[in-house]
């Protein structure tokens, strides 16, 4: 009888900015193409649906060793995930996450931003990080950190107007993201400063 395939090992999750990926080590069988299938199980399935598992069809019989599980990790509860290998009709045992995954642990990075002085207008361009993200933008006149102002940006649009600048004055800006669904914020971005000079911006 064919030897049982080894189960996938080193199953783990990479989660950054609410994008979640399951990864595992490849199962190597000489001369064979190994395919993998992934299933998930939320807290609801464990407690109310007989510990059932739900297949992720985009990650059924794939050869890659990574699966984008973002769409299925859509509640702030503990999820379990498992992977098994297959060659032809042969199947391995399931390899399972060592620790449940909750999206509240995603790592949040500071947003990319670009500060622009358009004439006397202080503008900021923020990276579109998806519908789960809001931004807190702080801005101040250089040297007047104590009089910092804040603007919360709930829906990303290409350009955000922050203030009307006094000519010849330097203005500084920094921003962080906020994810309501998990009630967490990123650290702040690097500070960027600009000075308005008669309609042309001058980076500092």
């Amino acid at each position: 009888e064919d030897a049982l395939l080894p189960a996938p090992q080193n199953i783990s999750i990479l989660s950054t900015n609410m994008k979640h990926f399951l990864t595992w080590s490849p199962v190597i069988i000489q001369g064979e193409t190994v395919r993998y299938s992934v299933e998930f199980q939320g807290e609801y399935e464990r407690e109310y649906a007989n510990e059932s598992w739900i297949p992720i069809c985009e990650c059924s019989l794939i050869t890659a060793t990574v699966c984008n599980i973002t769409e299925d990790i859509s509640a702030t509860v503990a999820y379990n995930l498992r992977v098994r290998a297959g060659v032809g009709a042969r199947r391995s045992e399931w390899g399972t996450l060592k620790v449940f995954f909750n999206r509240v642990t995603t790592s949040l990075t500071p947003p990319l931003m670009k500060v622009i002085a358009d004439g006397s207008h202080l503008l900021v361009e923020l990276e579109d990080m998806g519908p789960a993200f809001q931004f807190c933008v702080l801005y101040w006149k250089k040297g007047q950190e104590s009089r910092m102002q804040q603007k919360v940006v709930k829906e990303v649009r290409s350009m955000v107007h922050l203030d009307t600048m006094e000519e010849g004055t330097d203005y500084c800006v920094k921003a962080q993201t906020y994810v309501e669904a998990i009630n967490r914020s990123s650290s702040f971005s690097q500070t960027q400063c600009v000075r308005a000079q008669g309609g042309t911006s001058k980076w500092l």
Partner: protein
Amino acid sequence: LTAGNKIFHFGPCRVSMSLTEIRSGFTAIKANVQARDPVRTLSILSHPHSLHKVKSSDRCCITHHLFNFYVDKVFKHCKTEDSYVNRKISSIANSFLSVKRKLEQCREQNKCICGQESKEKFEQILLNYEALNITSAAIKSLGELDILLDWV
């Protein structure tokens, strides 16, 4: 579109809910689920009176009852042959479980008082539910989720 994780105030009980995520999960399968509902003439949540008639003082209790109802009774009987639908139902069910937990905390802290009206209203919903066979009742209740979401 923001993934609105709003803070809902039910009297002293404050609960944060990702309603937009729940609603987008439901919208993705609404037509499919409602097409499976064999009994269009009946409503489980709105018969004989709409949820909108519930007094505000009873809203927390009714909301708690309903989230329990969906988690305990409805979702598990909605399994379909469609993998995509099953995944979305799982997403909604896990979100409901998360909210149910928060409402339970309010109940434990006596911030979610149950009056006579909420008791009667919820009993009526159970009567409507039990008047159908379990799969039809579960599918119908799932199909009426937007009634609940609109009301909340």
